[in-house]
């Protein structure tokens, strides 16, 4: 028996699971966030309390749909992940072994320092598909490329061995 104390978390987990599973909405819409809110309420009840928020039990349980997640998971009825730069998923930054965002791809989904790219052998293109923050590519101690948010470089010179982000 699940105690009432933990019930909201169970509900949230269920909703989150349903959100993750319902990646193929029936029809494309001009407002995918609202579509998702409608889908959650239809499935689990609750009240819409903001553009991307659903609440239960007078606010005891609140589900907030993250804008990035909404865009990446629900905007395409075919289930294709939304890419903001080449094939680099939204919210990530990527290094490619080929020019023009081709070849093997390393996707970095969180911003840490000194991300090595040795697994690619050589880096030929870069993409920063994050909404904020820059990505810098280094060859040793030299900065080879600096990428603003939502930008990419279809070709970069050889020698890049790590990426940093901020």
């Amino acid at each position: 028996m699940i105690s009432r104390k933990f019930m909201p978390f169970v509900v949230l987990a269920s909703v989150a699971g349903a959100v993750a599973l319902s990646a193929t909405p029936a029809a494309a819409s001009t407002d995918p966030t609202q579509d998702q809110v409608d889908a959650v309420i239809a499935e689990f009840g609750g009240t819409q309390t903001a553009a991307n928020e659903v609440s239960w039990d007078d606010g005891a349980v609140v589900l907030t749909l993250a804008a990035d997640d909404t865009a990446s998971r629900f905007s395409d009825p075919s289930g294709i992940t939304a890419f903001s730069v080449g094939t680099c998923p939204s919210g990530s930054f990527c290094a490619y072994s080929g020019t023009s965002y081709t070849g093997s791809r390393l996707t970095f989904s969180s911003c840490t320092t000194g991300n090595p790219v040795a697994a690619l052998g050589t880096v030929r293109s870069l993409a920063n598909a994050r909404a904020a923050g820059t990505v810098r590519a280094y060859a040793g101690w030299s900065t080879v490329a600096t990428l603003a948010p939502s930008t990419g470089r279809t070709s970069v010179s050889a020698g890049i061995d790590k990426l940093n982000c901020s």
Partner: protein
Amino acid sequence: MSDQRPLPRGDAMENLVIAQMRDDLRAARRRRRFGVPGWSILATATAAIVAVIAVTVSMLATPTPSYAATPPMLQIEAAPAGSGDAAQLLTDLAEQLRASDEPDPAPPGQPQQIDLQTWGLVTTVGAEGEKVPPPYVAPENMTLTRYPDGAWSQVVVAGTPYDTQGKPVDDPQATPPGTELWRIDEAAGEHTYMFPDPLPDDPDELRQLMLDVGFADESSPNEWLSLTTGLLMERVLRPAEEAALLEVLADLDLDLAGTTTDRLGREAYVFETPPSDADLVDRMLVSPSGHILAMETVWVGHDRTDIPSPSVVSYYAWEGRT
């Protein structure tokens, strides 16, 4: 006082052995007379159960390798006798191409269109939770168009997915073949070309041009093939340009691996880079008429758990250059 007992002599040792045999015989008779005690059955059964559980837990604790899907390895056969080494064969193919009367596939003033099939292994770093890769290879078909004014278009559509044996996969979850995945359209002046101008026909000049793009003299053969891939994604080459390129590549330390049928069903020579610290071998497939058909990279290391060794980690197969 010593606590060491004198070692038994020969006859004493024989008596000890005989006595031990008698004791064993008596014990066996007692067991037969009274049967097997209950505790013994219980102990045996318990031991058996423990053993089964231990084996089961051991099997569960040892994860079954779950590899990302990668394309099947090319089937490479020995090159025909008389093919020579890689350098000689590339030089011969270049001469053959120069001597051919093939027309210019992309006359000046016309848009150049490059069609190719590509695939690359995706590795995600730092993701929360495990991301299960699709159990099939999902190639992409890419069309690159370079317009005379410098405008650029790159359109990528989903290809037909296939399994690790190369057989087509019918998965309703897969992106339907032909679906546009992404595209880039850049107006004149927006796209940065590595090779903005036509290539020289002279191999020495071409080598220097490729070095000027951002290479050092000591660049590895892998990087030369990587840059060659980038070049072939930017320009449709005239026969003389492609011949010069083959002559540049003939100076690398490539090996002739043999012949194969490429992923699009074409016969080709296979040239490959020698082993390197990167654990990656790059392969270049060249048609008997001297055209570069495909490039691919094979991982040959032993420290990855996401793919077996060896595994193809990316490939490019040019389908059309006009």
